[in-house]
């Protein structure tokens, strides 16, 4: 689909805004609908969109497999790390109250990092799934 002019132009226009929207959904999750799950899927969708238009190899250069896999792991570690931080600071596992002197601020801080972890992992997982299916058999380029 690389030769489709319309798609390439529209894609180039859309993809930055999709990523931006993902960030918005990620960080606005504290106050409105949103959060790491949705943001992660949107971010991954942007890259999948890129892969559909410019081909899988191009997407793999943009987000190489090792990085994607590391994202899966790091996101989970971040999530769990917040939990462990709660124990280190004298609370229970996943205890956000102790993350800051002010319990409400602590809740904010806790959920922020947890959602960041979720976002990273979900992006990684969606991409990984996409790569795994797309990488089998004929590549998208040859279609």
């Amino acid at each position, binding site marked *: 689909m690389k030769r489709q002019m319309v798609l390439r132009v529209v894609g180039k226009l859309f993809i930055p805004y999709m990523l931006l929207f993902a960030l918005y959904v990620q960080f606005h999750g504290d*106050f*409105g*609908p949103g959060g790491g*799950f949705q943001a992660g899927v949107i971010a991954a969708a942007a890259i999948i969109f890129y892969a559909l238009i410019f081909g899988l190899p191009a997407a793999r250069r943009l987000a190489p497999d090792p990085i994607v896999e590391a994202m899966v792991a790091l996101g989970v570690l971040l999530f769990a790390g917040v939990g462990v931080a709660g124990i280190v600071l004298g609370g229970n596992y996943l205890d956000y109250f102790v993350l800051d002197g002010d319990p409400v601020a602590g809740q904010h801080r806790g959920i922020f990092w947890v959602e960041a972890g979720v976002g990273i992992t979900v992006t990684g*997982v969606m991409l990984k*799934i996409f790569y*795994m*299916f797309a990488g*089998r058999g004929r590549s998208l380029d040859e279609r």
Partner: protein
Amino acid sequence: MSAFGHYSYWITVLLMVAGLYIVIARGNLIKKLVGLSIFQTSVYLLYIAPGKLIGGTAPIIADGFRLYTNPLPHVLILTAIVVGVATLALGLAIAVRIREAYGSIEEDEILAADRDSEGGA
């Protein structure tokens, strides 16, 4: 309360039974997974629908709103959807590899292939 007062339950039941039927009746591995997804979707509805209160709003404290929708089912189902996606992805991945190993995604053909190879060996 009429029989259709809570029509969401009817939809839930319909999806549930339809999904389960597809899983059992179809021999195609992909169709089975589709049925499984429909079956799981019915559960999402089962949880979400009763959480909604007529006239209720999203559970964010603000002036002028007294009636809130219960947010817990949404959180639960968000988790369940993630689980469902993971299951579907894994199921499809296995189906792809079955196709590579057997050259078919029809259950009866695969079983026949196994019988042949066992008989041959």
